């Protein structure tokens, strides 16, 4: 079994209302100097065959039309 993390984020150029909302909120809380905020999804999972992760991402975990993904790291778990 491998522990894997999939990071899913809005495709570049596609509207990201959540990212915008957070970016607008931060200064009001005194957090200045923050830019390019994007909000996406994190999926953590244990897989027997990490080789199938890309296929899983394309078919179920992400929406390839509007999202990009990155398979972050895999470490073996018992």
């Amino acid at each position, binding site marked *: 079994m491998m522990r894997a993390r999939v990071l899913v984020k809005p495709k570049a150029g596609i509207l990201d*209302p*959540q990212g915008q*909302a*957070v970016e607008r*909120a931060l200064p*009001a*809380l005194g957090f200045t100097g923050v830019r390019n905020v994007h*909000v996406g999804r994190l999926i953590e999972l244990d897989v027997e065959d990490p080789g199938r992760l890309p296929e899983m991402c394309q078919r179920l975990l992400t929406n390839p039309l509007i999202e990009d993904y990155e398979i972050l790291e895999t470490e073996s778990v018992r």
Partner: protein
Amino acid sequence: MKFGVIRFPGSCDEVDAQLACQRVGEAVILWHGDRDLQGVDAVVVPGGFSYGDYLRVGAIARFAPVMEEVARFARAGGIVLGICNGFQVLCEAGLLPGALLPNTSLKFIFRQVQLEVVSAASPFTGACAAGDRLSIPVKHTTGRFYAPADQLDALEANDQVLLRYAAGHNPNGSLRDIAGVCNEARNVFGLMPHPEHAVDPFTGPTGGLPIFESIRAHVAEHALV
């Protein structure tokens, strides 16, 4: 008496709440950017999708300028009612215990549900009797009440659970069927169901009316002392 209903960008049910309040008293809209509560006797944090519910429901709204005043008002014993998104905001603001998580169905659900009054010992349920049934609609995607087990025990021990979903009516997987809880001081109350959508016989059941009447009665009493 005078209610103040807060309007955030993205509030949806603030006018509905104002109409409901006006059945028992006066009600004004309070703008999220203002710090003046206009001397109201009770504050309603209404339902809707403040700031689009982006990031996390209620997470951004809690920082609105008006919320600092609401917190101060609450700490001074003022009556605060949070409905749906308002409940979420009050939890995020730490004025109420617990948090609201996505419905186990992961879907938005609108449904007329039966609620059971657990405690009538509050400014919000005083006009009811424990065990009363109220028919009120729920409408949300993120209404599953959560708190750690020990905190849940404490809430029940302190009689802070004011409303539960009646058996078979829990629409979202809330722990222990909790539909609404108050703070320890009992002057701040949040619930997922929408009492403001159940006050007019003309559009449906009126299970929400007792909540507003309770508040009026409570405020009237304490005005006398």
